[in-house]
């Protein structure tokens, strides 16, 4: 396990150093208020990134995440505002729809042997297109349930507030970590990412696992969409464009190997927090263009990919010689 722990340690160190530097410059960044907002502002990204972690651990990729977030937002908003459905029922419908959507992508990936990249790219266009067909405009949500949830916060000493959506993200991360590291399903996910041929020879139910992984990713994307709609109190078909790429970045920065098989859910959490930190810093600074976020993310990603290469190439045990 040592090898795969190293990127995680590196991420944690970089986060600690970056945070310390930021606090030295802006002491007010060290407060429960900022920390609380950290969780709230990045909740939707974090939840989607947990699903993405499973997908990437299994050696796949899911490009449909952002589109599913947008679609869910619109679906929920339309169900609540136009059809008068109770939000909780709307949430349930959205999650079931997304689960089926992800399962179908998983079926296509396994049975048609089409690369996940292509299948989820198609899924991305379908979901984004579907959302735009329902409505082209932003649909506001005015429901007392939304107002009630937004008010439901835990006050922290120092003026910070822990919102429900921030707590939801933390809970998802904890559950995700338990599933990934402590269940048979989790071990199958890693097995697929390690070597799918060996995995199937060792009796891993490859079809079932693949379908479950993509269904899980879509369900979490839908949950992320729900959180996003709570965050913005609206549904907009072009919301969360490119969030899948942020999620992939968070997963990779968090130390998960992009080719699968190695990584931790906790790493993704730190990855999300690191991305959030960069954004918060730029807001605090006030003079920097927000596009600097992208540049910093680009540098971080590049750094981590190089780091992983070094770690995994340097310590790879002697490769077998060519076949007899």
């Amino acid at each position: 396990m040592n090898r795969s722990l190293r990127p995680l340690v590196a991420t944690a160190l970089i986060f600690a150093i970056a945070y310390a530097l930021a606090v030295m410059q802006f002491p007010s960044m060290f407060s429960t208020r900022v920390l609380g907002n950290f969780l709230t502002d990045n909740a939707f990204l974090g939840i989607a990134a947990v699903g993405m972690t499973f997908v990437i651990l299994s050696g796949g990729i899911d490009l449909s995440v952002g589109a599913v977030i947008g679609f869910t937002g619109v679906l929920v908003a339309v169900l609540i505002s136009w059809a008068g459905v109770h939000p909780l029922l709307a949430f349930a419908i959205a999650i079931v729809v997304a689960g089926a959507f992800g399962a179908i992508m998983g079926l296509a990936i396994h049975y048609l042997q089409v690369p996940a990249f292509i299948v989820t790219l198609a899924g991305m266009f379908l979901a984004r297109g579907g959302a735009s067909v329902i409505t082209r405009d932003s649909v506001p949500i005015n429901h007392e349930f939304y107002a009630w949830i937004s008010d439901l916060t835990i006050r922290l000493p120092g003026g910070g507030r822990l919102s429900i959506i921030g707590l939801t993200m933390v809970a998802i991360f904890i559950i995700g970590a338990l599933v990934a590291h402590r269940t048979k399903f989790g071990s199958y996910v890693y097995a697929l990412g390690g070597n799918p041929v060996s995995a199937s020879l060792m009796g891993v139910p490859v079809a079932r696992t693949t379908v479950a992984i993509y269904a899980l990713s879509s369900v979490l994307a839908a949950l992320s969409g729900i959180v996003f709609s709570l965050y913005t109190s609206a549904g907009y078909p072009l919301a969360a464009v490119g969030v899948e790429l942020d999620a992939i970045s968070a997963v990779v920065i968090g130390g998960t190997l992009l080719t699968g098989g190695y990584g931790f859910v906790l790493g993704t959490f730190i990855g999300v927090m690191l991305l959030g930190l960069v954004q918060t810093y730029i807001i605090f600074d006030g003079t920097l263009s927000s596009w600097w976020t992208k540049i910093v993310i680009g540098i971080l990603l590049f750094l981590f990919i190089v780091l992983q290469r070094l770690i995994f190439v340097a310590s790879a045990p002697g490769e077998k010689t060519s076949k007899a």
Partner: protein
Amino acid sequence: MTDGQYALEARGIVKIFGNHVALDKVDFGLRPGEVHALLGENGAGKSTLIKILTGAYQPTLGDVIVDGSPVTLNNPQHAQTHGIGTVYQEVNLLPNRSVAENLYLGHQPTWFGFVDRRKMERDARTVLARYGLNIDPSSELGAHSVAVQQIVAIARAVELSGKVLILDEPTASLDRNEVERLFDIIRDLKAQGLAVVFITHFLDQVFAIADRVTILRNGKLIDTKSLDNLTRTDVVRLMLGKDIAFSGATQLEENRPLGEVLLDFKGYGKKRSVMPFNLTIHKGEVVGVAGLLGSGRTEMARIMFGADSADEGTVSVAGKPTSISKPTDAIAHGFGFCPEDRKAEGIFGDLSVRENIVIALQGKLGWFSALTRDEQMEIAGRYGESMDIRAASLDMPIKLLSGGNQQKAILSRWLATDPTFLILDEPTRGIDVGAHAEIVRTINRLRDEGLALVVISSELDEVVAYSSRIVVMRDRELVAELNGENINPGVIVQAIANHKDGVQT
């Protein structure tokens, strides 16, 4: 022995792929507490038989019998429930997971749905101890040597099945000490009453560990024998199918004058691949390479062509020292190479016959002098005719051609580059008799035209028929060079089997 005593038996197995008979009424019986070697050259049907015994294939005819009752094995997992476990040449485990998880994946002990890692690692430790492995079960499998991984794979197979263990070339990537360690484990398992099938290309290992041997050739059962009263030479003879009277050297080339020296390899070799060898090749000469599969024949061909680069020794072409570290170097010197695995390394299946023929010439000409379509047609047509490639059209995908015609197209590909030296690795494998004769004729014609050729083949009659000289490979080493009347199957078989039998070189 009566049938009831077999732990696993195959009776009258026939397996047909398309119109190719891979196995023809093969019987195979495995007793508990024996190590049973399965031998045969490539294409003999070993792997097909193994796949049937492990449930990966279904036999066309015949029965698989476990403990006296016929069973249908749907897949390897299903075979596992009948007690049949398999370990493959390439370790089919997960290098990214812990040793313990590799032992128990799919069968992990759970506690309220969660994997009980502590119990799993404790169990793993006791299991591994039985195999003499004192490693941390929570460590990553990939951090251990291939030998340890192989032992873990065996432990997993035995733990999950426990009656029959099939080892498919388990020693291919192990060194001598590791092989010994593996053999100790196999002996232990045998003492515990496990039935072990052992597949290898190394005869030494067969004699070191196996009790009985079953030999397949061309899909047919040749014999199942106890190894006690067999010699190495007997086994090689059975494998290669030579009921050789030790006489009658084929006096083909007695006084043929040698051409000038074209190639001179001195101490040429590559670590872990081929021991250094010396070989001089003249113009207008066919050097046959004989040896069992895995003896280093193909590796030798590959480093001659630069497909693998040599790490010691020198080579000179027409008297000038040079270096051949990649195929483009070799092609620049006028080399050509028809590889053994035609489908994977030879043809571009989806490209047309024409494109397959001109591709090496185009590669030699470089990017900036593209052959026009007319030129391509002209070249392809010329060779299509002279080599008698039978294709409905030269523009059809080459994968639709028969093996013999594909081989002729690949030969044409190199002939189009006007080579001085051709390496043919098993040029006649898997092609029909007519095409076979034609390839042999072509080899003779090219030699008469002054080309130098190195031809690797397991067909001894064939090597003997066209070679001016024969080199014999054994255990990755060039062990003999045969000339004149020593060019006969009997001497070759002895040289392959054991140099101690006294082959004068």
